[in-house]
């Protein structure tokens, strides 16, 4: 059987997340690597990636996150934390070499590609935990059925007791009337 020792996540440093604006500078070497892989198409692949790196902006606010990039074709997407369904963290070998990672966020949409992709960040684990604490299904208080049920039962019991007492009194008075 394999070992099952677990590691515990560090507490989330929120200021650090809210301060996150730009991807790590190591994203550029990663993009150069991607472009080099395309050999002859290098300039055509590198140019859009370079501009993406240059213009990529992240904004974490109290309610949601927005990611924007692009010069000619600008893109900006905003997702509220409470609509997040799945959080993906992926690190390919290039990203691991450069010490960065990607956090992909998915909502309940038809597309299977991530709605918001936070690429090239160094504190990807912090971002993951930050989002995890805010995603749908985490904030909602799970009402423990047992306690509400018991409380409800107590109340119902008292009312039933009152009804029983009343009925008993009516019966007794009816009995007296028929006797007399």
């Amino acid at each position, binding site marked *: *059987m*394999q070992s*099952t*020792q*677990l*590691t*515990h*996540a*560090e*507490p*989330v440093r929120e200021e650090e997340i809210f301060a996150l604006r730009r991807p790590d500078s190591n994203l550029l070497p990663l993009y150069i690597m991607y472009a080099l892989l395309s050999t002859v198409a290098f300039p055509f692949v590198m140019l859009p990636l370079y501009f993406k790196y240059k213009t990529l902006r992240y904004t974490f606010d109290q309610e949601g996150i927005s990611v924007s990039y692009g010069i000619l074709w600008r893109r900006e997407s905003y997702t509220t934390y409470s609509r997040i*369904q*799945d*959080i*993906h*963290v*992926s*690190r*390919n*070998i290039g990203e*691991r*070499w450069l010490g960065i990672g990607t956090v*992909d966020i*998915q*909502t*309940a*949409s*038809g*597309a*299977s*590609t*991530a709605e918001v992709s936070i690429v090239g960040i160094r504190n990807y*684990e912090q971002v993951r*935990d930050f989002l*995890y*604490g805010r995603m*749908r*299904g*985490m*904030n*909602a*208080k*799970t*009402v423990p059925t047992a306690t*509400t*049920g018991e*409380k*409800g039962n107590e*109340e*119902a019991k008292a*009312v*039933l007791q*009152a*009804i029983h007492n*009343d*009925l008993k*009194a*009516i019966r007794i*008075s*009816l009995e007296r009337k028929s006797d007399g």
Partner: protein
Amino acid sequence: MVEFLKQLAAPLLHLDLNAPHVPAGHENDRYLRVVRASPRFLSMRYMLVAFYAIGFLLIIAAEMIGSLFVPFTLWWLTLLIAMFFGLKILAMIIVTRFDYDMRWYIITDTSLRVRYGVWALREITVSFGNVQNVRIAQGPVERLFDISTLIVETAGGGSNEKNPHVKSHQAILRGIENAKEIRDMIISILHQQKRAGLGDPDDDIEHHAKAAALPIRELDAIAAETQKLRQLFTSK
């Protein structure tokens, strides 16, 4: 041997051999459970690699027989192909072993975290509040090894254009022994949450308030009625 390879490969490929983090605040959860892939899953993967190797040997044999009928020799080409596939198979064996060691499925009271991958490390976190369905899949080869795949799905779908191998709205627990038991456990957690897969975050609170209030209100009405009856009878 495996340990030595790990020591060698870990700094080179920047492998993260540690267990993934338990989601913060869930270290002492009631349902906290770490599920690992079965050793039989490893055997199955090795078998598939062996089939691949056999296929490659057949190609080499065919190539050698074929070279007897051509006037010029192709021994260097054969050697090149053999070396390439030999290295590839070696890499496949090592990656298969590492993949087995690096597969983690962590269940807490509120979420499921799946982490796997050697070349590209992937980790998906799904909260049980979003889970739509849980299903078990078992192919013939998996049945042979008595393991199955548990698939936990959230809302949404579609194919992934960027990477068709990764289905994003699914957390897949591959090669586990006790899929039924784990499915039942996840279902019992889902039942406790009593939340519709796409409901608003406080749906359940309202739902419970209504469920508790409804019989009490009716009972109160009956109680008031009997009280009046009692007064009617006892005052006469």
